[in-house]
């Protein structure tokens, strides 16, 4: 019990420090500690709801959420996470869920980790060299040529709804299968792809995560029956408390160095999952009761 409270606290600390949701760390950690991947993914989902609620509320008070965009993203997210939960169930019934989760984590975290590390090392190098040449995002790219344009007043944008819904559903799909909120994909995608102003990006991403993960929780509970409410509560309490302390530490460290540290952490998790795939399991046989929760 204290293990999971501590785990929630540690991940909460890191997520507060780095400003990320922490699902991508918490889910593998739970799996390493012996929780079955199905329960780990489904239980981290409500934990993400809790952590994004407290953060989203503070952005809401400062009016830093683009509601219209959130609704469109979440509309895609609901469809995506329904698809994700359905795929989750199908994979589980053919016995390949654990493998797919592990492989996706390796691919995903490895990719993100490398990109982040490269970007942050460059930034560190640049500040060392004394240059402040930061290329601002240009105002037009291929996304702006798409049809069904809508005006977003808060983001001061006039873009197509297509990339927004696609983005929302894609991240919702991944999030439901892998037990992560997807903020660390959503934020860069909103900034670089849609050119959403940085001040509303985080709030909008958090509100999206909140809505999508809430739906995913209900779907996991009904379709897979693998949400453990007690475990989720321990993770939530640990997480929200840890996040407060993490945020204080995070403010004391420089942005690029923080990102480099996070990148190393992400890569470490990816390597650990990869290692687990190649080592011979203690038990090559496994048993599952048909129609049961375990």
């Amino acid at each position: 019990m204290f293990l999971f409270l501590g785990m929630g606290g540690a991940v909460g600390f890191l997520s507060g420090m780095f400003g990320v949701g922490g699902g991508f760390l918490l889910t593998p950690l739970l799996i390493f500690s012996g929780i079955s991947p199905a329960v780990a993914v489904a239980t981290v989902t409500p934990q993400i709801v809790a952590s994004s609620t407290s953060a989203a509320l503070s952005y809401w008070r400062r009016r830093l959420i683009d509601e219209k965009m959130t609704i469109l993203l979440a509309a895609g997210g609901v469809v995506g996470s329904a698809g994700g939960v359905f795929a989750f169930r199908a994979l589980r019934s053919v016995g390949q869920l654990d493998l797919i989760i592990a492989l996706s984590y390796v691919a995903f975290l490895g990719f993100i980790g490398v990109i982040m590390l490269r970007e942050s090392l460059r930034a560190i190098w640049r500040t060392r060299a004394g240059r402040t040449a930061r290329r601002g995002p240009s105002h037009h790219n291929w996304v702006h040529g798409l049809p069904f344009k809508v005006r977003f007043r808060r983001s001061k944008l006039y873009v197509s709804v297509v990339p927004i819904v696609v983005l929302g559903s894609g991240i919702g799909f991944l999030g439901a299968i892998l037990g992560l909120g997807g903020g660390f994909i959503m934020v860069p995608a909103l900034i670089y792809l849609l050119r959403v102003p940085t001040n509303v990006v985080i709030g909008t991403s958090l509100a999206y995560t909140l809505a999508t993960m809430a739906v995913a929780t209900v779907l996991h509970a009904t379709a897979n029956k693998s949400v453990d409410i007690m475990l989720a509560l321990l993770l939530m309490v640990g997480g929200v408390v840890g996040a407060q302390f993490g945020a204080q530490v995070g403010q004391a460290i420089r942005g690029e160095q923080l990102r480099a540290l996070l990148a190393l952490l992400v890569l470490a998790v990816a390597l650990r999952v990869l290692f687990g795939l190649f080592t011979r399991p203690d038990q090559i046989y496994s048993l599952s009761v048909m129609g049961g929760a375990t």
Partner: protein
Amino acid sequence: MKRHLLALALLLGLPIAAAHAESLVSTLSDEAVSITSSFAGERIVVFGAIRGGPEDATGYEVAVVVQGPEQDVIVRQKERLLGVWANRTAREFKAVPSYYVMHLSENFSAAVSPEQLLEYRLGLQSLPFVQEANTEATAERLAEALIGLKTQRALYVEREEEVRFLAPDVFRTTFFLPSDIPTGEYRVSVYLFRDEAFLAGSTQVLSIAKGGFSDQLARAAIDFPLPYGLVCVALAIFTGWLAGVVFRRT
């Protein structure tokens, strides 16, 4: 409690000299087990007494079998695929007992052969799913793996010399229910033999149910999935909101 039962068993077991058709009386130390969150397994004692045998009767042989509710299970085998360990081979087994314990008395263990056990339909090897699997090599291997996994978790047990005679016609054995046993109706069967000939049998029901808060929660997750999911979300939003309020002040 034990002494009390022993007295009962002795009382019931008073030999009746006239008819030599043996009958069996058996009783359990508990007829219902409630699994709470602090449940760490439980010992159940089976007492038995033989009635109707000759006055100088010896050489009784006893087998006690405890069987849990049946389940359909899938056994999967991991194999290396491009260096990665992945589930490859799988077999489905129907009507697999969730729990199976067989205890034999000392003289029975000495006298009986595996073939005879099969004939009496006693023991893990005589379970229908194992018998059916014997026709195919893969199924046989996976059925053996299933037995191995269950044995590891102390859900399948075969023990010789575990039924002890307290008197020539009174016996006792103790079996253990591990903490992760499934709930349901368990059948405790006692078989009496002499010179490998079946004399009498008796069956008792042991019901195992869950109790306590955390188990009610686990059941709610299965029985009322939608309200359960909604409560999870409400709890999450409340926790998040509360944290926001608490930490904004400080």
